């Protein structure tokens, strides 16, 4: 039966009678589309895999919302079913699945690790470490733990592998930074400007700090992400563009707009605090080193709730 016909008989807002129940015909169709039988998966196992994936993300809906059959269908149809069944087959120790995984992902995994670490030796070490984990070397309470079990098919398996490698690498760097020896030379600390005549008065600086803080807090998530990625992380426009999946020129344009809007907002805030337009502009020329504020903290302050998804690993 065609997918359209499958869903045609269902009311758009029809909810499953039992919470978590899924459309059997849809599952049949997805089973046929997947290559689960090639890796020795049973139909029941496949259904379980899909159910767990849907439950992990609540079918892409907010938590607490009960997904309709249609919403379930939309969620399942964008899953990478082939990657999903392969990963689960590998996690369960299917030899054919592992051979296929090695043939398809072993070398790309090494290349990705080298690209992430920018060092061949470190990259190979990182890839080997993850590979060992994927193979199930780690155990918890006597049970083999395979990270592939956390993969739900929302993105490509290769993308998941790359992101996992990047996670490991970043976490490793952050840990080693905390363990950095005090004997190592510290970076030179830039001292504030000493020219008294050019310094803005303390009152004006205080006003400026507040104006900037309010302006940044009013920026949207995307603009704050752009500002933080560009000015705090030092990422290039291309790197930001890749992360957002847009063109480099789009990032440049959006970044410029974010800067202009922030500047206008700061000026507006200064004028609201009683400064003239000219004085506000002069205040913006103050030496940034005179400001007693942490832009990093300001940018990373979120108005919304913290990210709700729990990291599985």
């Amino acid at each position: 039966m065609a997918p359209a016909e499958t869903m045609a008989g269902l009311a758009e807002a029809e909810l499953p009678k039992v919470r978590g129940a899924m459309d059997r015909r849809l599952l049949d169709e997805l089973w046929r589309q997947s290559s689960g039988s090639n890796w020795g998966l049973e139909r029941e196992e496949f259904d379980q895999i899909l159910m767990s994936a849907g439950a992990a993300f609540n079918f892409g809906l907010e938590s607490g919302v009960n997904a309709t059959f249609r919403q379930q269908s939309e969620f399942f149809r964008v899953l990478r079913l082939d990657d999903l069944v392969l990963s689960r087959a590998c996690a369960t120790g299917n030899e054919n699945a592992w051979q296929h995984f090695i043939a398809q992902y072993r070398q790309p995994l090494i290349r990705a690790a080298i690209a992430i670490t920018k060092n061949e030796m470190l990259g190979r070490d990182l890839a080997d470490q993850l590979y060992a984990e994927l193979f199930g070397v780690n155990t918890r309470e006597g049970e083999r733990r395979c990270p592939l079990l956390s993969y739900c098919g929302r993105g490509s398996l290769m993308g998941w592998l790359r992101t996992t490698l990047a996670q490991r690498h970043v976490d490793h760097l952050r840990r080693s930074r905390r363990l950095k020896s005090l004997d190592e030379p510290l970076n030179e600390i830039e001292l504030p400007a000493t020219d008294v005549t050019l310094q803005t008065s303390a009152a004006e600086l205080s006003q400026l700090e507040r104006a900037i803080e309010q302006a940044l807090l009013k920026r949207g998530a995307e603009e704050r992400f752009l500002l933080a990625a560009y000015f705090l992380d030092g990422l290039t426009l291309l790197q930001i563009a890749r992360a957002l999946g847009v063109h480099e020129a789009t990032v440049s344009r959006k970044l410029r707009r974010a800067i202009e809007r922030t500047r206008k907002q700061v000026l507006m805030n200064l004028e609201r605090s009683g400064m003239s337009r000219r004085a506000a502009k002069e205040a913006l020329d103050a030496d940034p080193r005179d400001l007693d504020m942490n832009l990093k903290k300001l940018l990373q302050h979120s108005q919304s709730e913290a990210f709700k998804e729990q990291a599985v690993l």
Partner: protein
Amino acid sequence: MRAKTQHETHPGAETLSAFAEQALSKRERGEVLEHLAICGRCRQIVALAQEAAGAEVAAAQLEVVRPRARWRRWVPALAPAAAVVATVVIAAYVHERIVEKDAEVAKLDREHASQKPPISAEALPPAPVAAPALRHGGSEKKNKTDRRESAEPRASVAEPEETATAPPADGIISGMFSAQGGPTGNARFELRRSDNEALVPSGAPDNKTPSDTALVNEERKKRAEEQKEDRQLYAAIASEPPAEPAPVSGSGGSSPESNAEPADVSAQEPETQPAPASGSVQFHGLRSMMGVPTRPLVVQLPSGRPAISIAQGVHISLAVDRRGEVFLSKDSGATWEKVGPQWTGRAVEVRKKSERAGASGRAPASEALGQISGLGTARETDAVFELVNDQGQVWTSVDGKTWIGR
């Protein structure tokens, strides 16, 4: 599911990967973006993962290109093979053309021999010229063939010129002679650039159509008159004592045509170089005698008439035109000045007589080569020039300006 610890508040690898791959719903994407705006760690993870994806794409593109690169490895090996094949093809083509042309030349020779009126033996210069005459009979026909072929778009332009200037295979001296006009008068080549034909035999009988017969007869009459005049010159030159040089001295004047267009003639005698009836004479120096192509020296006299005799020393050159006017050049033929007549009759020849060479005026071949090629020695500065009039009388001069009767 709520996160309890700071680590658990980060989105998982799958969410970040799906975010970068645009696989999330709008609501989920907004949440991830909100988190990325405040989380440097996750921004760094996404950036690194996408950087690795870019590297992977580049590697994949490299693999796609690799098959072509493998094919290109054969190019260095194929290039010599292609060159060899091309050489063989060109050689075969040239050989085929030569064979065809030889066949045509032989055919035209036979036709020409049947049409051409016999030339009296008295008018012919001595033996050395006979062979070149025959040779040029062939070349002339060959050039005629080329002329006929020039109407076709693929007609070769360079080949006739090569035929005229290339040294023959039967030796250096004969090579010099071969390019010079023979007493038959048919061995002279006219340079015709305008019609894309390098050299055209001027005296060769044309394959005229019946409608052109009257025109051809008039031309033949004119040529006959010119031939008569030229034979007188030959007779004068042939009357020189045997000790005198110029074994082919009269050959240049034997041309039946008084055409002002330049001709291509190879120098053959170092001391006295009888020029053909054309106004353009090419000297071939040592290099041409050794079979190496050289740049020809072209003589353009101020009178506009062709030079019939040329003598070249180290510093000066002398030339006589068809009317007997003598010209002197001090810059190897670049400019010429007329020499006032200090002799009786009409000058028909100038030649150089070396003091060391004695009365014969004939220098050794090596010295002559040096003179022609501009490699003259100090002794050659002592050269004396001789001028011969139409009655066989001789005048001598050292500087080419002052002539004393002998």
